[in-house]
Every structure is written in structure tokens, then in C-alpha cells.
């Protein structure tokens, strides 16, 4: 994060301006109006809210870019005025303003920041002025330009690039840090002076030293909490518990409203219309309960979806199968636990799930809100293993009997023997009606079952409260969860706890910036300081904001219903991608299986072709077969095959030689088949392994032909030889002219016939001519065709048996049902229609 500081520099003014906007958009519009009045002289007043974290968020996006275009008019303005005024103001205000608390607070820092922002006129004149205009409407001169060109450009481009840089500059550079420390050491009064100095210097030289702006920003941030206690609560989206000043509920409300408003950076149009928006906001779209017929349609569609999802089977352990199974289980659980119950009775109390890292203080938070020690707290990590649900006694019925989280066993008290799948339900009057809190196990401890439960709970939530701490807010698991929330479109509130008072500003600023980068800048946020936890609870004053927020949810049915509705919609929206993703995975499995099947087919087809070739090209008449043939021919047996009829002693020849010849032929053919089968088996496994690791796993132990192959092959060939002999005997009587006076030995002749067949059709060798002369060309062709097709059929059967082993291996790994994918798509479509 050690990026150059130059990048960071433009940031600070940007932040400030933006922050201002954020501020003004929201609740602050009316008070704002008055603010400038008080401080009319200074146009810089516009840049008020500057210093705070929340502001940065928005700011960073729009602010950085304009740095290139120093605009003369704005420059001057900012140059002149702020110096003089801001100092004084910053001195005065904090002290003076005790009654208009929130308001003033807003003001004070803003001024300071104004100073700082003005200090870098070169960077940011445009943005500054725009923003100034937008809310206050005082500088019409700048307005035409600003939103239209630069701003638009800047808004679009700047947001993403520079932010991290700015971030870095502020956070991790050593030098600024050192500066900050220095500043801290210095007395608050001096501090201000330093600020002035800086302010004074910078405008003078247009291109100030790199780190100065950064320092400034930092110092300012640091100053505020240190220098004056009053300054602390800021007009950001943060809800600060304010021990000193009681925040009246109106105030809170106001702040709240503003926080709800999306900050939507990078939208010049909105910038201008921010005020308007703020005004228009109150008429929130009233969320009507769903009409019954729609509920029925939705329920039917969801039921269908659930059915088709539960029919899903991912048998093959392809990459991603585990995730798909998990996704399927999640989907089913969410449908059952949340979506279906929620659709059926959409007026049910809102379930607020408190989730977060281990040790973040989820249980403590829930205990404190419920003012009752319902969930165990402690130093051991992870602490909570069984989710605990707290609700108002009136709502208890709904949660104990209802379908929501229907799969979980309800118990009254957590006990060690209750394992996963239980849910503690506790009622307390301290909690307002209509909202229930659910304390969940962690998302990141070593106990991985906890993560699963936590995610299941989150799937059933109407609102998420995400708890993290000052030490943890940059943890990767936390951000994964936030991303999930964003993807699901769940309504989210973030609690940052265990914030040490002196670190508050820096941490908040940074965290908010991170949130904004993540696109979560607009969510409700609460801060809880690092305090002594007494009896598993936080002190009351820390809880005020959250209480109010809950109370508000409880009272304001519309808001609640809207939140509930939004989350539900988000979940239903997420089905659009989640369900097809499952279907796609299933299709992948089906395709994979088909491919593997095709591999088997191909391998054995080529093995058959190989054998076919071997039986034609004379390859078989080698080795022993050749020797036996020579023996047979050379020893005169061949001649003795053919005898004249009526010779009396029909030349029975040495049977052992014929037998040996026959078995040599059989062995030769058999070896060809076995060799081909070996190659095919290896080929199949090699192809499978090549396709994926899973292929290799399925094919394990199948890289050799089955043990019975040789036996079966021997039997098949012997049977074939019998068959050929039989053919020769029965059909080889054709040539009348010959058969009248010549007889032959069918056994021997069939062997000669085989040699003729195997030595290739083209060669006009002895065996060919012999059988041809004896049997006649026509019947020879007939016998030849029959013998060949019979041989093929027998080998084909052998290989079918062989390839069945692979099919069985595939089947035992699980057969995905192809139609399920289609049904899933259909169900998703139906759901969309029903909505």
C-alpha cells in the first residue's frame, strides 16, 4: 500500500467535497441551509463535512480526477477565504455549539476540512466548487461547467483507480504516521496553528510537497477527536454513541435516514439533484403485502423449484461438484427455511441475523440488546456454537411454531448435548415487537461446522447485522461475507465494535473507504467503542443507536416490510443465477459422462478395427501359424487332405498335426484379440485420465483387460473354428464335378480355408487355389462372408463384455439425470413469471 503520495494528494479534497455531498443529500439538508447562513462569508463553508470518514467514500470516487484542471475562479475563492475564516471557526465552533449538537459537529470538522481542501486548489477546484454549489446553491457561476464535463468524466473514471492509492497514503506510509503522532503530541491549540500554517503555505506554491496534503488530512482526522471532544460525533452515516450529549431520537432518525440513502458516488446528475432527492425521499414506496393469488403462484413456482432442486444429484466428483452439492443444499435449506415461509406469510416479524467473525462480540451485542444474558460470552474462541434467537414474547409463537428455519430443533436453553441443528429461542420484553435477533456462530474460526450454520442462518435472514472489530475489519473472511450479502441483495447493517477511542477516526475512515470501494458505502453502520464488558453486556450508552434502529424497525412497519421485501427479492433474484449455475453444472456432468462413454466406444471400436486389419493383412500367418502351415504342407498332409472317393481308406491323417495347426491358429487369433484388448483398456484409461483427475479415479484398476478375457477369447475362437468347419462341411459341397470323385477332410480343409482367409484376399496362394478349386468360388465367398461376420460378432461380444466394466464403473460413480437440468431452467423461468 506504499504507493506514491502524489496519487493520494488529490484525494483529500475530493473526499471532503464528497463527504459534504453525502452529508447534504441526506438528512442534513435543512440544517445545512442554515449553516451557510451563519457562516455566509465563506464560500468554503460549502465544503464543510470534509474531514469525516463517511464522506471519503463518496468523495474518493468523484474527487480525484479533476486534479488536472485548476480553475481560476474557484482557486482564488478558495485561496482567499478559507485561511482566514476556517481557523477561527474551527476554534470557535466546537465550544460554542452544545445545543445544536449534531449539526454543529458537522460544521466544525467541515470547516477545518474546508481549510484543508482549499489548500489544494490546484487539485480540485472544479469538484470543490460544484459540490459546493449543488447543495447550497450559492455559486451559480460554476455550476454550468462542473456537472456537465469534468465532473461527469471524473465521476466515471476516477472512482476506482485512485482510491486505494489514497487509502495507502493515509494509512500505511510511515511519514504521515509520524506526522500524526507529532500532531498528537502537540497541544490541541498548537495543532490548530499548525493546520493554519499548512493551509497558509500550500496555496502559495501551486504544487505543494507530496506529503503535505496527506499530512493535513491525517492531522485533521487526528485532531478532531483529540483536540476537542465535541467534534467527535460526525455527520456521517456512522451512528456514534455519544456519551456526553444525549442524542434525541429525531437526531438519530435524521442521521439514520441519511445513512439509508445510497451514496451513489460518480453520478454528477445526482449530485446536483441530491437535494431534491433528499426531499423526495420520504415518500417511500409503500410495500403492500403480496396479494393472495400472487402468493399462491409464487409458492407453487417455488415448490416446483424446490422439487427439481432436490431431485438434483451430482454423482461425479468433477471439479466444482462439492461446491455444487453445497450450493444445492444451501438452496434447498434456504427455500425451506426462509423463502417459502416468507412468501406464505410476508407479514411475519423480521429476523435479524447477527453474524461475524469469532470474537467480534456477536453474543455480547445480542445480550446487550436483549438486556439479558441469553447467549454465552467469553474469551474462548469460538464461543457460540448453537444459534440463539431472541424475540419479543408476542413473536415467540411465530418463531417456535413457524416454518422459518423449520429444520432446526427448538430448544429453550443451550446445552452441550444439543448439537448442530438446534436453535435456542428466548423471549424478552426488552426487544421491540416485530424484530427478532439471531445470534450465530462465527464465520471464520477453526470449527468449520460453525461456518456452515452461520451461513444457513444468514440464508434465512431478513436483515443482516454484520459485526466486526477494529482489529478485524480487514480480514478476508469478513469481506467474503460482505460480498455474499451484496450478491444476495440482503439488507445489511454493519457494527464495528471494540473501537478504541483514540483509534476511532482513523479506523472508521479507513473502514468506510474500504466499504465504499466494495460498493457498500451506503449501508447502516454503527460503532461501538472498546469498553469493559460487564457480565457479558456492553454499557447501555453504547447501545443507544442500535436500540433506536431496532425500535424504529419495530415501529415503522413500512420500513420493516420494505427491508424484508428487499431481502426476499434479493434472494429471489439470486436464484436467477444460482439455479442456472446448478443446472449448468449438471449439464457439465452429463456431458462429461457422455464423453467418457464415447471414449470407451472409440477405444473398443479402434481395437475391433485393428483386429479386422490383422485378419486381413496376413499378420496372423506368422510365427507358429506359419511354422505349422509349413509343417502341414511340407509333410504331405496337405496333399492327403484330398482323396479320391471310394479309395476305401479315406486318408485319415496324423490327427495331432491337424490339432496342432488348429490350436496354433487359435492361439494366433487369440493373441491378436488380447493385444487389442490390452491396448483398448489402456487407451480408455489414458483418455479418461487425460480428461480429468476424476476420469483417472474412475478408471483406477481398469487399465488392464478383465481376467476372464483370455478364457472367453479362447472359447469364442474355438467355437468359431467349429462353426467354420461346420460351414465347410455343410455348405462346401458345391462343386458337383469335383465332389463326384474327390472327397476331402472337412477339418483340414477348414484350416486351409482359414489360412486362405487370413493370408489376405488378394494373394493367389496355394490355400486359396485349393479351397477355390474344391469348393467353388461362389460357395467360398458365401462361407468366407459368413465366417468373417461370425468372427466379428464373437469378438464384438467379447469387447462388449469388456467395455461393460467401464460403463459399470461410470454408473457406480453416479448417473446424472439429464432431464433435471431442463426442469431446473423451467422452474427458474416459472418463478420469474410468478414474480
Amino acid at each position, binding site marked *: *500500500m506504499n504507493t506514491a503520495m502524489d496519487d493520494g494528494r488529490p484525494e483529500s479534497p475530493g473526499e471532503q467535497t464528497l463527504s459534504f455531498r453525502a452529508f447534504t443529500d441526506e438528512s442534513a439538508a435543512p440544517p445545512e441551509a442554515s449553516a451557510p447562513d451563519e457562516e455566509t462569508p465563506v464560500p468554503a463553508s460549502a465544503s464543510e463535512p470534509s474531514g469525516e470518514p463517511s464522506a471519503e467514500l463518496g468523495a474518493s470516487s468523484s474527487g480525484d480526477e479533476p486534479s488536472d484542471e485548476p480553475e481560476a475562479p474557484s482557486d482564488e475563492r478558495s485561496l482567499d477565504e478559507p485561511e482566514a475564516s476556517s481557523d477561527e471557526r474551527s476554534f470557535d465552533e466546537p465550544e460554542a455549539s452544545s445545543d445544536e449538537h449534531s449539526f454543529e459537529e458537522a460544521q466544525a470538522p467541515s470547516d477545518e476540512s474546508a481549510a484543508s481542501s482549499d489548500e489544494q486548489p490546484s487539485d480540485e477546484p472544479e469538484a470543490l466548487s460544484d459540490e459546493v454549489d449543488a447543495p447550497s446553491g450559492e455559486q451559480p457561476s460554476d455550476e454550468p461547467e462542473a456537472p456537465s464535463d469534468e465532473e461527469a468524466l471524473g465521476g466515471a473514471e476516477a472512482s476506482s483507480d485512485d482510491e486505494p492509492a489514497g487509502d495507502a497514503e*493515509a494509512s*500505511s506510509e*510511515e511519514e504521515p*504516521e509520524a506526522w500524526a503522532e507529532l500532531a498528537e503530541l502537540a497541544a490541541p491549540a498548537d495543532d490548530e496553528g499548525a493546520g493554519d500554517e499548512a493551509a497558509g503555505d500550500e496555496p502559495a506554491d501551486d504544487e505543494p510537497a507530496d506529503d503535505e496534503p496527506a499530512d493535513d488530512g491525517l492531522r485533521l482526522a487526528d485532531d478532531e477527536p483529540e483536540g476537542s471532544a465535541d467534534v467527535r460525533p460526525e455527520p456521517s452515516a456512522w451512528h456514534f454513541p455519544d456519551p456526553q450529549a444525549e442524542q434525541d431520537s429525531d437526531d438519530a432518525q435524521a442521521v439514520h435516514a441519511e445513512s439509508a440513502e445510497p451514496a451513489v458516488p460518480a453520478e454528477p446528475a445526482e449530485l446536483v439533484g441530491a437535494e431534491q432527492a433528499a426531499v423526495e425521499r420520504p415518500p417511500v414506496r409503500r410495500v403492500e403485502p403480496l396479494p393472495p393469488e400472487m402468493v399462491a403462484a409464487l409458492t407453487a413456482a417455488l415448490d416446483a423449484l424446490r422439487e427439481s432442486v432436490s431431485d438434483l444429484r451430482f454423482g461425479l466428483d468433477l471439479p466444482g461438484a462439492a461446491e455444487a452439492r453445497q450450493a444445492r443444499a444451501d438452496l434447498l435449506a434456504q427455500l425451506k427455511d426462509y423463502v417459502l415461509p416468507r412468501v406464505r406469510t410476508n407479514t411475519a416479524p423480521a429476523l435479524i441475523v447477527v453474524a461475524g*467473525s*469469532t470474537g467480534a462480540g456477536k453474543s455480547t451485542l445480542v445480550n446487550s440488546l436483549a438486556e439479558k444474558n441469553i447467549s454465552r460470552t467469553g*474469551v*474462548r*474462541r*469460538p464461543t457460540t456454537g448453537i444459534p440463539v434467537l431472541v424475540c419479543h414474547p408476542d413473536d415467540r409463537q411465530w418463531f417456535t411454531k413457524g416454518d422459518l428455519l423449520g429444520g432446526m430443533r427448538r430448544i429453550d436453553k443451550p446445552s452441550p448435548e444439543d448439537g448442530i441443528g438446534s436453535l435456542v429461542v428466548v423471549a424478552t420484553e426488552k426487544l421491540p415487537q416485530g424484530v427478532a435477533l439471531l445470534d450465530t456462530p462465527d464465520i*471464520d*474460526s*477453526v470449527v468449520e461446522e460453525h461456518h456452515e450454520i452461520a451461513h444457513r442462518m444468514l440464508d434465512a435472514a431478513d436483515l443482516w447485522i454484520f459485526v466486526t472489530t*477494529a*482489529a*478485524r*475489519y*480487514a*480480514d*478476508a*473472511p469478513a*469481506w467474503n461475507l460482505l460480498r455474499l450479502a451484496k450478491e444476495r441483495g440482503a439488507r445489511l447493517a454493519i457494527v464495528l465494535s*471494540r473501537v*478504541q477511542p*483514540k483509534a476511532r477516526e*482513523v479506523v472508521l475512515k*479507513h473502514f468506510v473507504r*474500504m466499504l465504499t470501494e466494495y460498493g457498500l458505502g451506503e449501508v447502516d453502520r454503527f460503532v461501538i467503542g472498546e469498553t469493559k464488558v460487564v457480565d457479558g453486556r456492553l454499557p447501555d450508552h453504547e447501545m443507544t443507536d442500535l436500540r433506536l434502529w431496532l425500535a424504529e424497525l419495530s415501529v415503522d412497519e413500512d420500513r420493516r416490510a420494505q427491508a424484508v421485501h428487499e431481502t426476499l427479492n434479493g434472494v429471489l433474484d439470486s436464484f436467477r443465477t444460482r439455479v442456472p449455475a446448478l443446472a449448468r453444472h449438471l449439464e457439465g456432468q452429463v456431458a462429461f459422462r457422455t464423453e467418457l462413454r464415447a471414449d470407451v466406444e472409440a477405444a473398443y471400436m479402434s481395437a475391433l478395427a485393428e483386429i479386422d486389419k*490383422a485378419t486381413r493383412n496376413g499378420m496372423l500367418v*506368422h*510365427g*507358429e501359424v*506359419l*511354422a*505349422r502351415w*509349413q*509343417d502341414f*504342407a*511340407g509333410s504331405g498332409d*496337405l496333399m492327403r487332405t*484330398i*482323396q*479320391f472317393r471310394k479309395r476305401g481308406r479315406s486318408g485319415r491323417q496324423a490327427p495331432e498335426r491337424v490339432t496342432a495347426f488348429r490350436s*496354433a491358429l487359435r*492361439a*494366433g487369433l487369440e*493373441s491378436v484379440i488380447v*493385444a487389442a484388448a*490390452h491396448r483398448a483398456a489402456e487407451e480408455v484409461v489414458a483418455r479418461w485420465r487425460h480428461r480429468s483427475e476424476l476420469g483417472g479415479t474412475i478408471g483406477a484398476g481398469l*487399465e*488392464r483387460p478383465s481376467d476372464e478375457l483370455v478364457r472367453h477369447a479362447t472359447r469364442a475362437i474355438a467355437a468359431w473354428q467349429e462353426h467354420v468347419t461346420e460351414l465347410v462341411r455343410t455348405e462346401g459341397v458345391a462343386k458337383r464335378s*469335383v465332389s463326384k*470323385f474327390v472327397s476331402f477332410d472337412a477339418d483340414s480343409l477348414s484350416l486351409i480355408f482359414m489360412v486362405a482367409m487370413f493370408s489376405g484376399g488378394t494373394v493367389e*496362394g*496355394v490355400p486359396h*487355389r*485349393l479351397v477355390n*478349386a*474344391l469348393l467353388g468360388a461362389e460357395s467360398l465367398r458365401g462361407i468366407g462372408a459368413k465366417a468373417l461376420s461370425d468372427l466379428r460378432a464373437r469378438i464384438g461380444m467379447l469387447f462388449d463384455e469388456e467395455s461393460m466394466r467401464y460403463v459399470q464403473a461410470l454408473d457406480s460413480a453416479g448417473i446424472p439425470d439429464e432431464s433435471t437440468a431442463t426442469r431446473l431452467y423451467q422452474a427458474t423461468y416459472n418463478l420469474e413469471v410468478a414474480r
Partner: protein
Amino acid sequence: MTAVTTRPGLAPRLTALTKIVELGPGRLDQKVLSEASALLTRAGERLKLSSEHTVVALAGGTGSGKSSLFNAISGLELSPTGVRRPTTARTHACVWGLEGAAPLLDWLQIQWRHRFARASALDKGESQLHGLILLDLPDHDSIRALTDTEADRLIGLADLVVWVLDPQKYADASTHRRYVTDLAGHDAMTVFALNQADKLSTEELAELVIDLNDLLRREGVEHPSVVPTSAVSGRGIDSLKSVISGAVSRRRAAIHKLEADLRRLERRLTETMPVGEALSAPASVDEARRLGLTDALCDAVGVPAVGEAMENVYAERSSRWVGWPYPRWLAKFRPDPLKSLRLDDVSDEIRGITTGSVSAQAAEVSNAVQALADGLTVGMHPVWRTAVHRAARSRSSQLPKVLTEDLTEVAPELDRVPGWWRILKIWQYFLVGAFVGGLAWLTVGLTVPGQLPASLQLLGDSAALPWVGLMMASVLGLGALSGIASRNFVVLGASRERERLEREMRRRVAAVSETMVVEPVERELGRHHAFYSAMRGLSG
């Protein structure tokens, strides 16, 4: 740096690892192999670098106080601490005792501006830390760390890792699942500092330490050394220092670390390729298997059949040379069925068949080779099995051709006519002549007695006629006898020839199979054996 004497045990094991890395490609899983060669490189590099220094890394999640602890140990504010998460993005190093440390720091890739030195003059009473290189690592669990493996890298390189845990995060999966479960066997090289102890009461701390100990034991760290520390209050810093200084002063942490890494790698290796019975697998092709292969190849060539054929054909053909001629002449008068089939020339062609040479049948050859490989690789790891098969088959496409060519040289010429056959044929014809002569004598003696010239009186001598008759019978008998006798000689000779032939052919088949099958197979078997010997050597 006398590597061998001061580091007994490590050197042979590294040698074994070298062997494994050398033999591994194509046999070992690519990931494990690259891990192994990485370890080998690392070990080589580390051992070359200063053995006077011990690299101690402070690792942990973001916000657990690594930098604070680093500063507390070094006594200087060297590494910036902060509340923003994550704070440290670059590793900082502090060296006690500079000389010789620079190459080590270069190797660790610590940037120059993040290197700090504690001059020994500063450290009164810290002499036992002399030789320490303390690293303050970036975190491994923040969103920044997702794209930055710096912490991972240095955790792997450091000689001693101090895991800085804190009460909030000590049970995080990101620490335990990714690192601690990997640590089994690294007990001596791992210290757990439970930082931020100041945030807890004494009882809480005690409970937590017990819990952490249990957790670590469950994960296979047999003797976890847990040191509660607080960078803020300074508590426990001294005990942590003493733990570190203990390791530093022994100067053996680097070796222990490498040994532990070797052990872990060995575990991974044995997981993927268990030694098991592998070493009992044959390292060479024994005599029985060679014989089996030769037999099978002989069958593929048809050696026995060739011999038999030779014997039969010789016996059959010799009768036309050495046999009694009379039956042969008689047979000529018998009608030939071939002639009636108008296949007169076939008999010549049939004789031509026997001139064909020997040849090997490719399918049987490949089956023979396959059988040898199958027999040798029983119980082998599939990867090695495939390798041996491949080696066996490496030249099997040429094998039938080579066999055929080689054996053709010794193949019997079935149409060969030995000289003594010719002599016997002459002898037989001479006997026939004698018989004919006798017949003429008899005819003359019986038909024209007394009318012969005096010189031929003898022919007409009737007293001699019975003797002539006797002689004729003897000639006939002699012909028959010599026919039978010489046929027997032919058969005898043929069977002797057959034996010789088969021996010769077997010899040649064996020679061919030796060079074309056995040698490559033995190379692979040797490789297999060497690999598993190295595996055993690695286990020490």
C-alpha cells in the same frame, strides 16, 4: 560452515532428496515435486548463507500486534504500528550483529529501507540475541493478503516462526487451517505468542492459554510453546526474548527448520508414494522371468513348431532321395486327385511353401512383453507400473521385425538336400542297376543256355543261376534295408538338427529380448529402486 561435520543427518537426507527430485519427473505429482525441488533449493541456499544468524519471523493475522511486538523486542520504533488494518504491507527486519547478514537479507528479499540493525554496542546484556534477524511480516489473513504471498513466502523461509496470536483471533481458521495444521513436527521451530494479554484479566488469560494449548494439541502440535505477551505493558516480552535467544544462541534453528521441513515433505511424499513394499519389488529381471520372456517370444516366433516342421519335412522329403525307389515309382502310377482338379502345379507351390522362413507374430510378441511387465509390477504404484510398461514397450514396435530378421539367419532350409542323400540315391540306383543286371542274367541264363559266346558262358551257367537269384533278392533287400536305415539316419539327424536349431534360436531370441526389452525394463526398475531407496534415505 563445515557442512558435513556440524550438520550430521541433514546432508544424507538432502542427498536423498536430490535423488528423488532427479528421479521424480514424470513419476511424482508435479506439485509435490516442485515443492521438493523448492525445498532443496532453499536448503542449499540457506546452508550456504550465514549459519551465525537465525531468522525469526513474527507472523500472525492483521491486528494481532506483530509490529508492536517487533518494536518491543527490538526496543526501537522501527516498524510502524497503527490501528488501520492491515498496517504492515512490507516486511521489516532488524538484525542483531550485522556481519554476514546482508546476503541472508538479500536472500530473504527484504528491501533495503526496511532493514535495521542493532549495533551490538547498544545491546548491553543482549548479547545472547546476537545473530538474530527478526522479521516483522505482513499479515496473512486480510483482503490485502489475498493477492500478496509475502507472508507465506517468509513463513516458509524463516528458521523460527513466532505466531503472534491475540485473544480475538487466536482460533481463526485462516491461521490454523492454513499453517498450524501444517506445523506438526515443527514444534521446536514454532512459538506462539499470545499477544495483547493486557486486555484480559488473569483468570481469562489462564483460561485462554489452556484453550489455546488444547487447540494446538488437537492440531498436532505436540508440545506447543505458548508465551503470553503484551507489547503494550511489556509483559512477557522478556520470556519471549529468552525463548528466541535460546534458539539464536544454539545456532541450530536453521537446521532444525530444514529438518522439520524435510520431515513434512517426507510425509507428503510418502502420502503420494508410500514406500511400503516397494523396495521388495524386483530391482532387476531375474532368471526365471527372462526364461519366461524368452519362452513366450519363442512361442511368438513358433520355434518349437519350426523344429517340428523341419523334422517332419525332412523325413518326408528324404524318402524321395534315400528311400527304396520302387514304392515311389509305384505311386506315380496312382492317379493324383490334384490333377483331376487341374491343380497340377500346386504340388510345386506346396513345396515352395516350405521354403518360407520364420517370422514373429506381432500380437504375441506384444503380449509376451506385456506379461513380463505385468509380472514385474505387481504391487507397484500405478505411476511406476505405467512407467515400467512403457519402458518394456519402448521398442516393441521394432521387436517383431528384429526377431524375424535375426532368426531368419538360422532358419532351416527345408528344401536343402544334403550330399549323402545324393550318394544314397546313387547307391539306391546302383542297387536297382544291380537288380536289373541280375534280372538280365537270369533271363539270358534261362532262355538261351549254351548259345552264348564263350566269354559270356558264365551267364549261361545254370549252376550259377540260383546264386544270381539269391544275389538279386539280396540286392532288393539291401536297397530296402539301406532305404530304411538312411531314413532313420535322416530322422535322427533331423532331430539332432532340431535340437541344435532350437537352442540357437532360443539363444538369439534371448539376446534380442535382452537388448530390446529387458534392458529398458531394468533401467526403469533400477530407477524405481533408487527412488524408493532415496525415499527411505529421506526418512533417515
